[in-house]
């Protein structure tokens, strides 16, 4: 039995003007510890699918299970979700931001300071617990957001284009960091991105979606030699560009 399974998911958005079918008959499974990416043209419903996996709303039909538990409405399941921007709360200190999830889960307050400082050093930041988000750069803030996500020890990490708002250098560094941390903690992760290179460099498997309505078009397996490398090293490997070409052509044919 796989770790995460998406079965027969359909989703339709309703507005006064129309009912728009965002996802049509999505079936996929992800193994424990696996890193997968969703890519596809805009409007292919990849973010919708991610939100459904996160249990943020219920699909029109079908279901998502993590370790045989239904995701939607399940309060015991902890899921880490990283967004395009860091969405750190500007009126909270870095420590309060990192431990927000713990506070909401009503955990022992005494341990918070330790958790925050060990997570900060874990994501490669100096001790900035008492600072406010506005005092940090964009790359540092996204690292804090990662620490906030990891603090609750989630079963699965959902990454919604978390690197797309960063400058190129920060983006490459953060890709390496996230990939490292996830391997270290043995976390399962799903990345939504529009960057083919990023998907290849980070993932074990890549799901390509086609648009209107969103359907699973093709699955690519990232070759073993790339998987063992860090994202930065993978970008320089010879099999990187050949996979890039294949996916690029497939993506072109969809538009």
């Amino acid at each position, binding site marked *: 039995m796989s770790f995460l399974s998406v079965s027969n998911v359909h989703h339709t958005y309703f507005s006064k003007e129309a009912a728009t079918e965002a996802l049509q008959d999505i079936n996929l499974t992800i193994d424990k510890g696996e890193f997968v990416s969703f890519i596809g043209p805009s409007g292919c419903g990849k973010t919708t699918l991610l939100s459904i996996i*996160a249990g*943020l709303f219920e699909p029109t039909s079908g279901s998502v299970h993590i370790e045989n538990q239904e995701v939607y409405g399940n*309060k015991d399941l*902890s*899921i*880490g*979700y990283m*967004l395009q*921007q860091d*969405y750190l*709360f*500007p*009126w909270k200190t870095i420590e309060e931001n990192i431990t*927000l*999830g713990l506070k*909401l*889960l009503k955990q022992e307050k005494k341990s918070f300071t330790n958790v925050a400082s060990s997570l900060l050093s874990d994501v490669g930041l100096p001790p900035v617990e008492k600072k*406010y988000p*506005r005092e940090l750069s964009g790359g540092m803030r996204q690292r804090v957001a990662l620490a906030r996500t990891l603090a*609750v020890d989630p079963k699965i990490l959902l990454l919604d284009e978390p690197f797309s708002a960063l400058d190129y250098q920060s983006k490459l560094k953060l890709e390496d960091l996230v990939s490292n941390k996830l391997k270290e903690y043995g976390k399962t992760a799903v990345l939504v991105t529009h960057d083919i290179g990023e998907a290849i460099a980070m993932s074990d498997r890549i799901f390509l979606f086609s648009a209107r309505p969103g359907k699973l078009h093709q699955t690519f397996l990232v070759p073993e030699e790339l998987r063992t490398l860090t994202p930065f090293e993978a970008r320089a490997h010879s099999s990187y560009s050949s996979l890039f070409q294949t996916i690029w052509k497939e993506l072109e044919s969809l538009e």
Partner: protein
Amino acid sequence: MNNQKLHEQFLQSLRKEKRWVRFYQLLILIAFFGLWETASRFRWIDPLIFSSPSKVMNLLIDNIADGSILVHISYTLFETVLGFILGTLLGAILAAILWWSPFLSKVLDPYLVILNSMPKVALGPILIVAMGPGMGSIITMGAIISVIISTIVIYTAFRNVDANYLKVLQTFNASRSQMFKEAILPSSFPTIISTLKVNVGLSWVGVIVGEFLVSSKGLGYLIIYGFQVFNFNLVLMSLLIIAVFATIMYQLVELLEKKLIKSE
């Protein structure tokens, strides 16, 4: 060294500008009262109606000496502060209820519009009959004049909170009350403060009109009494006192703003 010198020069030019601003502010103040006094002395304006600063000052000194004005000031101030706090607090609570139940907010929407457009001071006579001609009805006037507009403005702020903050909380399985406490309320603080600023002025209006109607104590009573016995020294004195205290209240709210909003 050179940089330090340039910085020193920059600071000096800032100080110089500030001094000039203060100078012109003072000049306007002196010119206003000077012109008023002169115009009244030379009968360019009718001193019976427009009084003069010296007459107002003399009256004020007399009234402070016999202690009568302090009673009036404390009554009005107490009513205004209480009406102001009640109005804003009630507005915030109502806004929270509307945020809690989107259905209720849809149902109540037209009624809020009606209540907001209606001139609340017109309710004065009814309040006085219902609650008796006392402090209670005056404080109520000070509060109802600001409660609906506060509700509308604060509720709008609640709704405009970036949904992604709520998404972050939702992934931590936060309850609705946790979302309110962690995201909705703190990110609406700037709006709540600016409502407070508007409400300072509004609650003075409510209380003064209330005192006009009840006519027993307070600065509003002094104004209406001065008008009835044609003593415009009294009217203008009360007006100046109101201006001073309303300004102080506003400054206090600004002080609160600086304390509360540290993230900016």
